[in-house]
């Protein structure tokens, strides 16, 4: 398969001159193979601090695989991942806040137990912020997860993840499978939780919903990177929206 690269794509840059010179995230020749399936193929990327990056691609393009490897719950077949210049491991997990696409709580746990758990293990967890966000959501902290609806559990999980003052947030399909009203709440929570200097990588195929909040985007197809560029590249150079560009690129 030949991938046509645009003649010139401006590289995503740090948000300001004050941002650290070293990239926040570096993937070098990253490959992940499951049996005969190549989920990610020789993937290279450098993401500076202070960006909101959309990880875009159709189902099976390698988005989740990439996020899981950065989070440290999956292991590359070859290649390297560095977060703040450190290989993925115990140290990087202290700076990475990961939202997987499915709930990971024990159903017997109460919401307040989850808050205590995060406060115990993550020094960057903002308990006051979590209390506030849960109150806005109307979640009773004495409730067991089993008593909450699937959508509420997902929102609680997002609140916990975004209440950390992490350097890198990895959000895997945070708006997939929820109603439009919930989508708005989730995006608002992400924006509210975002702190300048930290980076969010957000995977989705619902491009229209996230387009406005993105600084950069990464297009993935069949485990290969098609493009990594600022959203402005599409809107200004191509004269179209990111959603339209995405639909054109992945037309079946």
């Amino acid at each position, binding site marked *: 398969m030949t991938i046509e690269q645009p003649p010139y794509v401006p590289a995503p840059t740090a948000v300001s001159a004050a941002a650290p010179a070293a990239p926040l995230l570096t993937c070098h020749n990253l490959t992940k193979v499951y049996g005969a399936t190549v989920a990610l193929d020789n993937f290279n990327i450098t993401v500076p601090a202070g960006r909101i990056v959309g990880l875009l691609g159709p189902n099976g393009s390698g988005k989740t695989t990439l996020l899981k490897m950065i989070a440290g719950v999956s292991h590359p077949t070859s290649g390297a991942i560095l977060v703040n210049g450190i290989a993925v491991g115990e140290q990087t997990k202290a700076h990475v806040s990961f939202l997987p696409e499915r709930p990971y709580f024990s159903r017997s746990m109460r919401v307040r137990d989850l808050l205590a758990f995060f406060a*115990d293990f993550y020094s960057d967890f903002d308990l006051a912020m979590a209390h506030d966000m849960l109150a806005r959501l109307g979640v009773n902290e004495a409730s067991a997860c089993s008593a909450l609806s699937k959508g509420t559990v997902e929102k609680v999980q997002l609140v916990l993840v975004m209440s950390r003052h992490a350097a890198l947030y990895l959000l895997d399909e945070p708006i997939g499978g929820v109603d439009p009203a919930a989508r708005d709440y989730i995006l608002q929570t992400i924006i509210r939780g975002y702190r300048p200097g930290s980076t969010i990588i957000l995977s989705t195929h619902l491009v229209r919903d996230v387009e406005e909040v993105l600084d950069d985007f990464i297009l993935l197809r069949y485990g290969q990177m098609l493009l990594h560029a600022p959203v402005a590249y599409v809107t200004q150079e191509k004269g179209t929206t990111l959603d339209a560009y995405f639909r054109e690129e992945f037309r079946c």
Partner: protein
Amino acid sequence: MLGKLIAYEFRGVWKPALIILVIMAVAGVAGSMSLATVDALTDNYSYSSSDVTTDLSVVLTLFTLFAGFIVWAGVVGLFIVTVVRFYRTMFTDEGYLTLTLPVSTAALVMAKYLVGFVIMAAGTALAIILYSMMLAPLTSDYGLSASTTILAMLSGSFGFFDDQAPAAVAAGAVNAIVGIGYQLGLAYLALTMGAWLAKRHKVAAAVGIYLGISWLLSLMFSVANVLALVGIGDYGWEMVTMMTGAVSVAQMVCYAVAAAACVALSVFLVRRKVDLS
């Protein structure tokens, strides 16, 4: 961080573990009372006793056997509770929470191992006490107290038959502890290997690995025991006890090394090989 992890592990398993321990205790006490009643009935037995007395003795004896089974099943239940929690919190969706914590993989696995070990040790100790209580009516006929029965069980578990010497009892106790550590370590390794190697039916794969390794080691030591006994010749019972004791020492050392190796290998595989699905 290890202390916090251990505290959370205890919070996660104490309820089901306590329920099982209480069931074991109730069954053990009931079984003990039941056998004591049978003992009293048979002590006063005469040919003029009614059929009701005989029937009651049979029923109570069967109940005692059932109670003994419940106590044994309780130990197995505790084992299942600890290994299921290990699997659920490491390799299912809950693994996303566990494996993204900013703690070392060694601390994660060790916390689960230590808590599982304490629970299993508590269950095993309770089972030994309950069995000695249940057997007390019978052993008292031979002048053995409940505590002597416990000591005999421990030393007997190590191959020192009919010997309640402190060294033999201590060896038996250490052997029991090493046995628990080995079984738990092997179970964790098997589950980790199942999660690593199998695409589907990971638990089934883990059970296969566990049984395979378990049987292989047991077979090895059974052969060693037989060879040792065959090699003794006609040197008497003392020599037999000494040789079985020597094989037991070798077995205990091997199991201790195997337990440590299982835990270390589990840590390595979780850190480097296992991918959450």
